[in-house]
């Protein structure tokens, strides 16, 4: 039995928002693969929870009229990976979330829960950052649109007011169109482990595949929150596709990060990973885009 003070089970988003307004202290329970475990361990025991897991209107992926990809937050990791829209336009996101936990966790864990937890190791976070995701956040007062870039306030802290619920994750067409991406997760085991470091790169090359038109790179566990490496992106813009591109990205990426020492890895090792994964992910993304070294 889970030690909940109270559990609410809204049937619609409106009911959920009303409940959240009435009980601002309540935790939003999506797939529960973090909250239920922390309830079991005692850290969150005695909480009031609002279970939104049953709200199917918050599931699924679609393309809006202007080409924006809309991911509803309760979509499970496995459904993101299997989704034909994701597979066609942003396969790197499907590949990234296919590295979360194990199959059972990918079936219950949700992409919205992944980013609302606000942890730096979230496998979906670096790719969503690198694709300029925009969040739709709802409350009884209406809907607020927030760039995902501004969402993480600190470790485990996100810009969600006590009366708000995440209701959508959008990736604009301009961000994903004609891009190719690569996510690399470095972890101590191949499954059921949290990233020691995660790196997501996506590139758009010129028509002749010889110049980088745009490069985006973001990291997990390279700072207290998932972050974009803007210096590396700037340095790579307009660069020629050749061996020195990887060095350009890696040497600038290390200027943007601030990893810490934890029991998983030292700061020094993480710096080494940031540099090496930058190179490998950049090379792989450019090759997917048709670039030749």
């Amino acid at each position: 039995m889970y030690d909940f003070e109270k559990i609410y089970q809204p049937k619609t988003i409106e009911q959920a928002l009303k409940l959240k307004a009435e009980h601002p202290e309540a935790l939003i329970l999506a797939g529960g693969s973090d909250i239920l475990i922390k309830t079991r361990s005692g850290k969150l025991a005695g909480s009031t929870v609002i279970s939104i897991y049953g709200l199917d209107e918050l599931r699924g992926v679609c393309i809006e009229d202007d080409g924006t990809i809309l991911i509803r937050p309760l979509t499970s990791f496995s459904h993101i990976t299997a989704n034909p829209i994701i597979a066609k336009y942003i396969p790197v996101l499907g590949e990234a979330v296919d590295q979360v936990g194990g199959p059972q966790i990918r079936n219950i864990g949700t992409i919205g829960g992944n980013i609302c937890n606000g942890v730096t190791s979230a496998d979906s976070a670096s790719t969503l950052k690198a694709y300029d995701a925009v969040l739709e956040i709802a409350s009884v007062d209406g809907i607020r649109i927030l760039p995902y870039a501004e969402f993480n306030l600190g470790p485990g802290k996100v810009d969600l007011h006590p009366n708000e619920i995440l209701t959508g994750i959008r990736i604009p067409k301009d961000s994903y169109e004609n891009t190719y991406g690569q996510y690399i997760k470095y972890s101590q085991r191949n499954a059921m482990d949290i990233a020691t470091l995660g790196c997501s790169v996506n590139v758009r090359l010129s028509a002749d595949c010889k110049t980088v038109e745009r490069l985006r790179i973001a990291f997990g566990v390279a700072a207290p929150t998932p972050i974009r490496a803007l210096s590396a992106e700037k340095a790579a813009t307009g660069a020629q596709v050749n061996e020195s591109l990887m060095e350009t990205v890696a040497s600038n990426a290390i200027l943007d990060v601030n990893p810490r020492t934890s029991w998983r890895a030292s700061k020094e090792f993480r710096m080494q990973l940031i540099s090496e994964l930058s190179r490998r992910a950049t090379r792989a993304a450019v090759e997917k885009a048709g670039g030749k070294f």
Partner: protein
Amino acid sequence: MDKQKITFTLNHEKREEYIDPRASLSEVLRGEFSLTSVKHGCNVGECGACTVLIDGETFNSCIYLAIWADGKDVLTLEGLSDVNGNISDIQQAFIDEGAIQCGFCTPGFIMSSLPIIESPRTFTRDEIRKQISGNFCRCTGYETIVNAIEKTANSRHKAK
């Protein structure tokens, strides 16, 4: 806390049950339905011993609230036997291949193998390993488990 009615399909039969909304599905399956193939191993979604299928996907029933099963189709290992109680091909393969030692993890592994052996496509051994990567076995070293799953998948494909 007040009990709440859920209606769901359990091992091919429609069932109704009044449950505590704080209960995990594994607690309800073991406690109310005596389906003891569902093991409580770690109770935090790490070991896979409580794996069941819900609408055809694998879930750790220990971190799945029983109220969420309302309207769903739940399958446990007990649901794999035929009406006369004969075990299924995958269960027999685990026995034949020596994929069982203490047996505690076995029901979870067999439930995790169902999406592989019921898939129309062929899984490589690496893909089989990935699909069972949320299940822990401390006896076999996994090799015999992969053998049992591969053998069953192959024989089902040949039968088609």
